């Protein structure tokens, strides 16, 4: 009914993000929240920080993933309707950082869910985070086209759980 082109354009202009802290030291979280302040104001790109994965398009993850919170991360990822992208923020989110060899650490976010853009730094500057999110928007537009064709990318095993709802 509504032209696909119009929806595709709207997708990149209205990314709502949800921020998940996977055992971060809070350095990156402070920088993520700094993006919302008047100085950086990501709302001028239409970005809203929502608290609900069901409304979100971008999952911003900070911190290393450990054995306790990897299923939380997976669960939140699965609750987001497609198209969706994941941004790993900080050295810990990208690779595990200085904690990568710890006995309780699984590693970076990409060990659990597919990551679309990485923001290096410890902690990254708000400009870098905004840059990473804008990079992810290009991927969001691509994924949106695939969703329009009816192709969904889900983690193996979760597809049935979601369609059963």
């Amino acid at each position, binding site marked *: 009914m*509504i032209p696909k082109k*119009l*929806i*595709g*354009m*709207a*997708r990149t*202009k*209205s990314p*709502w993000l949800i921020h998940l802290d996977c055992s971060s030291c809070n350095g990156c979280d402070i920088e993520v929240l700094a993006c*919302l302040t*008047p100085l950086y*104001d990501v*709302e*001028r*790109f*239409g970005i*809203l*920080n*929502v*608290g*609900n994965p*069901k*409304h979100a*398009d971008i999952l911003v993850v900070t911190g290393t993933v450990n054995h306790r919170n990897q299923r939380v991360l997976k669960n939140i990822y699965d609750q987001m*309707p*497609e*198209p969706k992208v994941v941004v790993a923020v900080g050295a810990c989110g990208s690779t595990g950082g200085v904690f990568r060899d710890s006995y309780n650490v699984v590693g970076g976010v990409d060990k659990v869910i597919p990551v679309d853009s990485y923001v290096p730094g410890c902690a990254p500057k708000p400009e870098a985070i905004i840059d990473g999110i804008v990079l992810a928007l290009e991927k969001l537009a691509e994924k*949106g086209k695939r*969703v*329009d064709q009816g192709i*969904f990318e889900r983690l193996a095993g979760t597809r049935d759980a*979601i369609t059963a*709802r």
Partner: protein
Amino acid sequence: MNMENILAIALAVLLSPILGGVVAGLDRKITARLQGRYGPPILQPFYDVLKLIGKEKMIVNQWQILCAYVYLMAAVLTVVLMALQSDLLLIFFVLAVGGVFLVIGALAAPSPYSQIGAQRELIQMLTYEPLLILVFVSIYLVTGSYKISEILKFPEPLLIPLALMYIVLGYALTIKLRKSPFDISTSHHAHQEIVKGVLTEYSGPYLAIIEIAHWYETVFVLGICALFWHTNIPIMVALVTLTYLAEIVVDNICARLTWRWMLRHVWSAGLLLSFANYTWIYVR
């Protein structure tokens, strides 16, 4: 049904969402400026809704679909009935049915966030509906009719005999527009209220439907405000604009209240103002 009515219905159905969306966009822009931010583009609410329509359909159960559509239909119907200059009480009941279906949709999901949001939405309805009825009855006491077509024939602006009732309407307006301090069931912009309150389990296209319904409701409540100065169009527009600007300012300077505070404050102030205004109507 004559041509004029069909035209009024078409205009109401087609123009209201555009007007409501632009009002929502201006609201976000002005709010951002009040907070020292640059703010999103004016058309941002349209981008949001288009994006939501393009999202995957993820539902918890079938009731949510029905409830979202009934909520939209009720909101469209209130605006259509108002465009047809119908009965205020009829419009009020249609509005209430829509509100109830929004709550039922939220209660259909077992999520505790949406359950609490739904209970709070019910308390909000309990708070503003008696006040809205009192406003409509006071309009009847002054003009002698509930029909908007008759009210429009009244020679003087309603704001003069019903100044205090306009403040009462302002309370109902703040609750209905989901503005602070009364945004306890769910909230707009990036504000969060127990995840997203009553809207937590609505997602994708169904959230878009609810957003569009909210635009219709915005137009409806602003239309009720416009009734208070029906004799002169420029003053009417100025009154509605000023009222909405006041809503935005109140939204930005107030913290969120608990539901007990809301009930106590809105009912005591609202009933007191109504009582004073009703006395004034009889004394006059």
